[in-house]
């Protein structure tokens, strides 16, 4: 065999071998035109925000009603003590607004208890510190978690200045007495928090706490000047928690 013939033959056989070794396509049946879409009923906003009227929401009955609505529907375990898990809870004036340094604050204010939840900050420290991007910020400003990705490092709990995050030290399922079968639980070793009811917004419904608040909590688009929250911010004096940290919370309190 001549050199030229040999090279030709070698090229031909190697090409043939390469082609036959290519991964076989369509081993699994591929659906052709599947895709994803947004539900038509979804509520949309540029930046979701909440306004809590602390005059109305000072009522312990109403507070418990709101907390129960959220916790029971989201399968939040009822654990007492240091391993408590909470999405929405109450605290005193000096714990809620520690950087309001009035020397003689009004007693009507200092005696109130305030509803607290995740502030869904515009500059969320929890998102910055999360090493797996399990916590992330949606385009509409809601800070949510992908529990599948959470590795339980708890950096976000250290990062959050509002104590809005809870860690599941043990399997939460035994602590959920009557689970809502429409909503998942969490597992041992993940952090959880309020989601601004993003799963309900997708269905066109307002958050559970807003529904249960009997008008004491407003929810709407901060970017829309005609929204209920913007009108409330226009009409009353509001403050946010720890504004000096620059996190730009999305939860406002009417005093």
């Amino acid at each position, binding site marked *: 065999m001549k050199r030229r013939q040999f090279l030709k033959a070698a090229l031909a056989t190697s090409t043939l071998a390469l082609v036959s070794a290519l991964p076989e396509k369509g*081993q*699994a*049946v*591929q*659906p*052709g*035109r*599947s*895709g*994803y*879409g*947004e*539900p038509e009923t*979804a509520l949309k906003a540029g930046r979701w925000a909440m306004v809590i009227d602390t005059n109305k929401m000072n009522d312990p009955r109403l507070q418990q009603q709101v907390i129960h609505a959220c916790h029971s529907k989201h*399968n939040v375990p009822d654990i007492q003590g240091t391993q408590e898990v909470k999405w929405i809870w109450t605290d005193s004036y000096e714990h809620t607004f520690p950087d309001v340094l009035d020397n003689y604050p009004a007693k009507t204010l200092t005696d109130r208890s305030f509803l607290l939840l995740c502030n869904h900050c515009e500059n969320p420290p929890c998102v910055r510190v999360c090493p797996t991007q399990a916590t*992330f910020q*949606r*385009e509409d400003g809601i800070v*949510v978690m*992908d*529990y*599948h990705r959470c590795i339980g490092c708890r950096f976000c709990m250290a990062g959050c200045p509002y104590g809005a995050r809870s860690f599941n030290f043990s399997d939460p*399922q*035994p602590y*959920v*007495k*009557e*689970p809502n*079968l*429409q*909503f*998942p*639980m*969490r*597992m041992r070793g993940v952090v959880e928090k309020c989601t601004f009811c*993003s799963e309900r917004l*997708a269905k066109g419904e307002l958050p559970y706490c807003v529904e249960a608040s009997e008008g004491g909590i407003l929810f709407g688009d901060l970017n829309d000047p005609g929204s209920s929250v913007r009108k409330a911010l226009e009409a009353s004096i509001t403050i946010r928690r720890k504004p000096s940290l620059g996190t730009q919370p999305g939860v406002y309190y009417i005093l």
Partner: protein
Amino acid sequence: MYNARYIIPGIILFVVIFTVPFWINICTPEYSRPELVLPAEKDCIEPVEYMRAEHMRILNEWRDAALRDGKRVYIATDGRQWDINLQNTCMSCHTDKVAFCDTCHDTNSVTPYCWDCHIEPQTAPAAGGAKQ
């Protein structure tokens, strides 16, 4: 050949040990697909062959689409639309996790962690409704 009475048995022994998985495989009964309790509704979101091979990939894509991109509707190949929801869409037909999901997963020694968080449908009327 030097030391042939050691080397040749050694080689034979090596070949036998090296091919042991094949011998074991020949001796054990052939893999048979487990008998599943199929749901009454035969019409799944995609063809059966595709679901059988790719349901895990679909679920992973669903998770990212719904959580990350806010796209909570799956448009199937035939154009039908489905809510992206393991607990409320998939398991509204596949109501029996033990008879459907677990049968295949156990046979194939895979342990997906879906139900660490997602609640399986309560097939038997559980007292108090709590699954523990």
